């Protein structure tokens, strides 16, 4: 029997005004009914275009130039528009990355779902609406009957994605294509959505193509995986084989770039140098050759074909890595050679920065004439912590829990509503004028969005010169020297001074941002999600760089991220935030391995791990529900609304931080997952909480 979906030698071009992007270049894939296929790869390698080619929904200028797509035996890539329309939404459903922009903002969700039904089924309006409510029930949307008349903006991000799924499933397609369905969502929600898709797949018996850049996401979900690189399939096999024994150097490199495994060893991460090639002029030979550490001359001359040594495991490489999978004979290939890093600096420096009972409320105002204050967003509520010289404190938590706000309070971009920030013993909040500006030098900020944080009209040189100019440091020549030096530090070529931000890649821009932060020789750097927008390979470059320069320059970091693995990899200590509160803090490993707070536990469980076995081992874990509004935070313990252990007291009494080890591990919970150590002299509830 033919597979459900068969893509053979698919080639898709996108015509630009002056050039042609060969976005998909000879992709062959197949998918059985009921099966989940994961497609992974770096940004720009053609995943989305492959998916859209199947749907024949290519952007303007895009068209299939070769190959075939067959659905249940029928060639759908050659159907005319009318016929293809009957396939879309009916035989194949699709969901997209950003659920907010992917829904029509001016149409009720009910109508949008009903539309899908009406397009393919001879039904009345009422019947279509009934069906809409039914599928909304199916995707776990409470009170679906009432909510069908609401608009997308009235839903939270996770709920919107559920609506998208409902829409895609309204006609019970045989195939669901999910293009990065969870990339825009929090890990906690991500887990819920992935589980939902999985569950529906099983219940409806459909096949799923799950497109993602995150190896963790597919580890527990996909039956088979295709790794894409530069418009081609680099390697494809079943999930467990791939994770256990990647054969393509690219796949291997992706694994090595993940901080998950290195978190314990704190080894240097492997980073793939350079960038994926420009698909307007794809290189000849193996497309990965330029970035491959094993590449030989042959790789640059001849193009490897996708072939397998065993059935079901194919890869396009002349010099595969990993172990040969034949008759138990394992041929060892040289593994990655990585220098071991010096272990994370030992704790014990003096306290460099202390946040004391920080509070930040953002007023919510109404009225354009006289701004009335009608409430406040409690973004940060009484948070205290310390960072010692040379250490890294990682802050994690769901989106909107106040991480960024803390960072901004520390660098002085926001004034706290209450509390103090002490730097080297001196109060930062109270200082003014020259003193303030001098202090500014010691704490610098690295922004999340490397693009938005660089003035598009300034060349890199000017960007780096600006801090020196502002602080009146050095002559122009001194400044030039220092700029060149700093570019060397962050690994940018000296010719970069003349380039504009848009002429850099994402990783390079982040390095530039880092260089700017370093220009004033700060002692503390607040890095707000510096790697969140980057591909794993680039992420590894930046993480490595941050660690290298920390040892080299004796920097102290406040590292903010929503990715626990990254935080754990980089930090000595971790603080977990929930809705403006610090709910747990302590040495990185202790917090990660033996969390005391149910929220921390939930976060850890939600984070996908690039290990199929570990993923399958997780059962019914994660955090339920969604983050409540910060304008009216829940009384007592703010987490209680989502906590599996919550009892009445949680609503009445706000838990305080209690010590859970002598190393400074603390958590604020009435029903911790492990018993607290007796309150002794090491920690008192009132004093600023010392961290290791």
């Amino acid at each position, binding site marked *: 029997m033919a597979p459900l979906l068969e893509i053979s030698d698919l080639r898709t071009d996108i015509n630009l005004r002056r050039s042609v992007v060969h976005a998909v270049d000879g992709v062959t894939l197949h998918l059985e009914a009921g099966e989940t296929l994961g497609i992974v790869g770096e940004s720009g390698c053609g995943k989305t275009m492959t998916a859209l080619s199947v749907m024949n*929904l290519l952007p303007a200028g895009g068209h299939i130039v070769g190959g075939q797509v067959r659905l249940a035996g029928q060639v759908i890539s050659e159907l005319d*528009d009318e016929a293809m329309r009957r396939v*879309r*939404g009916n035989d194949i459903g699709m969901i*997209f990355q950003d659920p907010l922009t*992917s829904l*029509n903002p001016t*149409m009720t969700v009910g109508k949008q779902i009903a*539309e*899908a039904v009406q397009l393919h089924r001879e039904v009345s309006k009422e019947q279509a609406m009934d069906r809409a409510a039914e599928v909304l029930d199916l995707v776990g949307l409470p009170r679906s009957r009432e909510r069908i008349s609401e608009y997308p903006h009235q839903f939270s991000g996770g709920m919107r994605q559920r609506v998208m799924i409902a829409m895609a499933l309204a006609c019970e397609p045989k195939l669901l294509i999910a293009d990065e369905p969870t990339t825009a969502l929090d890990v906690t929600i991500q887990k819920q959505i992935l589980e939902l898709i999985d569950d529906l797949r099983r219940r409806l018996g459909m096949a799923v193509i799950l497109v993602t850049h995150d190896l963790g996401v597919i580890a527990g979900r996909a039956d088979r995986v295709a790794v894409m690189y530069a418009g081609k399939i680099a390697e494809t096999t079943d999930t467990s084989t791939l994770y256990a024994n990647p054969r393509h150097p690219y796949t291997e490199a992706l694994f090595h770039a993940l901080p998950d495994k290195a978190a314990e060893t704190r080894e240097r991460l492997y980073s793939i140098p350079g960038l994926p090639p420009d698909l307007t002029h794809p290189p000849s030979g193996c497309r990965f050759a330029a970035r491959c550490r094993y590449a030989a001359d042959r790789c640059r001359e001849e193009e490897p074909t996708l072939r397998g040594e065993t059935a079901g495991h194919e890869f396009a490489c002349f010099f595969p890595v990993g172990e040969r999978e034949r008759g138990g004979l394992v041929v060892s290939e040289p593994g990655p050679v990585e220098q071991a890093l010096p272990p994370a600096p030992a704790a014990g420096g003096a306290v460099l920065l202390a946040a004391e009972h920080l509070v930040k409320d953002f007023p919510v105002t109404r009225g354009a004439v006289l701004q009335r204050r009608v409430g406040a967003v409690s973004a940060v509520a009484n948070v205290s912590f310390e960072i010692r010289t040379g250490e890294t404190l990682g802050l994690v938590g769901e989106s909107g829990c106040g991480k960024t706000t803390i960072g901004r309070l520390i660098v002085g971009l926001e004034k706290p509503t209450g509390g103090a920030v002490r730097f080297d013993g001196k109060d930062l909040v109270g200082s003014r004028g020259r003193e303030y500006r001098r202090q500014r030098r010691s704490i610098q900020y690295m922004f999340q969005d490397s693009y938005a944080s660089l003035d598009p009209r300034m060349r890199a040189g000017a960007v780096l010169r600006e801090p020196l100019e502002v602080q009146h440091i050095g002559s122009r020549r001194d400044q030039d020297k220092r700029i060149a030096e700093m570019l060397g530090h962050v690994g940018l070529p000296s010719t970069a001074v003349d380039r504009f931000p848009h002429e850099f890649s994402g990783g390079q821009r982040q390095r530039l941002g880092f260089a700017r932060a370093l220009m004033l020789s700060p002692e503390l750097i607040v890095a707000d999600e510096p790697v969140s927008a980057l591909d794993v390979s680039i992420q590894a470059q930046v993480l490595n760089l941050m660690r290298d320069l920390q040892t080299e320059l004796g920097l102290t970091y406040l590292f903010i991220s929503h990715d626990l693995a990254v935080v754990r990899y980089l930090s000595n200590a971790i603080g977990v935030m929930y809705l403006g509160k610090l709910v747990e803090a302590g040495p990185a490993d202790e917090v990660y391995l033996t969390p005391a707070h149910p929220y921390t536990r939930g976060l850890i469980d939600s984070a996908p791990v690039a290990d199929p076995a570990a993923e399958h081992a997780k059962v019914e874990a994660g955090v339920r529900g969604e983050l409540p509004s910060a304008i009216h935070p829940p009384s007592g313990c703010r987490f209680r609304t989502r906590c599996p252990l919550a009892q009445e007291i949680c609503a009445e009494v706000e838990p305080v931080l209690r010590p859970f080890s002598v190393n400074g591990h603390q958590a604020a919970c009435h029903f911790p997952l492990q018993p607290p150590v007796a309150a002794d002299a090491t920690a008192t509830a009132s004093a600023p909480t010392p961290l290791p």
Partner: protein
Amino acid sequence: MTGYLIRRFGQALIVLFFVTVITLLLIHLFPGGPVRAMLGPRATVAQVRIFNHLYGYDRPLYIQYLKWIDQLLHGNLGFSPKLNMSVAALIAQDLPKTIVLVLLGTIVSLLFGIPLGMYQAVKRYTVGDYVLTGVSFLGYATPTFFIALLLVEWFAVDIHIFPPFAPQGSSVGQILAQPQGLVLPVIAYSFVLYALWSRYMRSSVMDNLVQDYVRTARAKGASERRVLWGHVFRNSLISIVTLLGLSLPSLVAGAIFIEVVFNYPGMGLAFFNAAEDVDFQVLLGFTVLATVATILGNLLADIGYAMLDPRVRYN
């Protein structure tokens, strides 16, 4: 929604205050006295003095302002000695006719501008698009009065299809009773507007067509037609509605030219005559009224916007 309206209303009051101050100041910029201009060349000094006193122009500016505001608050928009009627009566007589013109013109221009703008967006960079782009730029760049007069020359003088001037009459009924007389004024009036709408619609539709939700609709299997009319249309309309509200003052301005060229007995014509005659009270009254209308129009546009855009409705 009501809270929002109340807030907008508060804003409007403040705006109105500024408007009254600005207009009064503007009008006092006139050289010589208003009375002298009103009385004409035969007036003697004594007569000027008498009338200055009669109309209170000999009092300090702020007193005049307060008096005027007091009048306004009592619904008294003043009296036109040139026309021998109260400004309110004048407005009651002429405003409805202008509204007819503006409405007809706007509707006609929207009827053409919206679909053609959509057509252009869908068929962008084709010959049809270029031709229509040319037409709309012509609409932008040609002085209204020039278009109007050429229309008269072509359609009224050269080939007698339409009358050269607008219907005359005191009431809307009389105006509407002569629809053939409305053709040329309405065409001339809608041309510029057409250019505006079609241009905006084109770019708005183009923006919307690349939105993710359009891709979603296509992924559902919706036809291009459905995508366009069922999804893109309404979202694109939102920007047009805002624009409609914002362009109210220029709608009124456009009407002045049309009314002057076609002798259309509306408010614009009355305003123009008042300016020529230095008929202060009419100028003041009309400006305030036009402002109120604009503010109301903006408010209506906001409501329309809210109706179209649920994101605003529920805030």
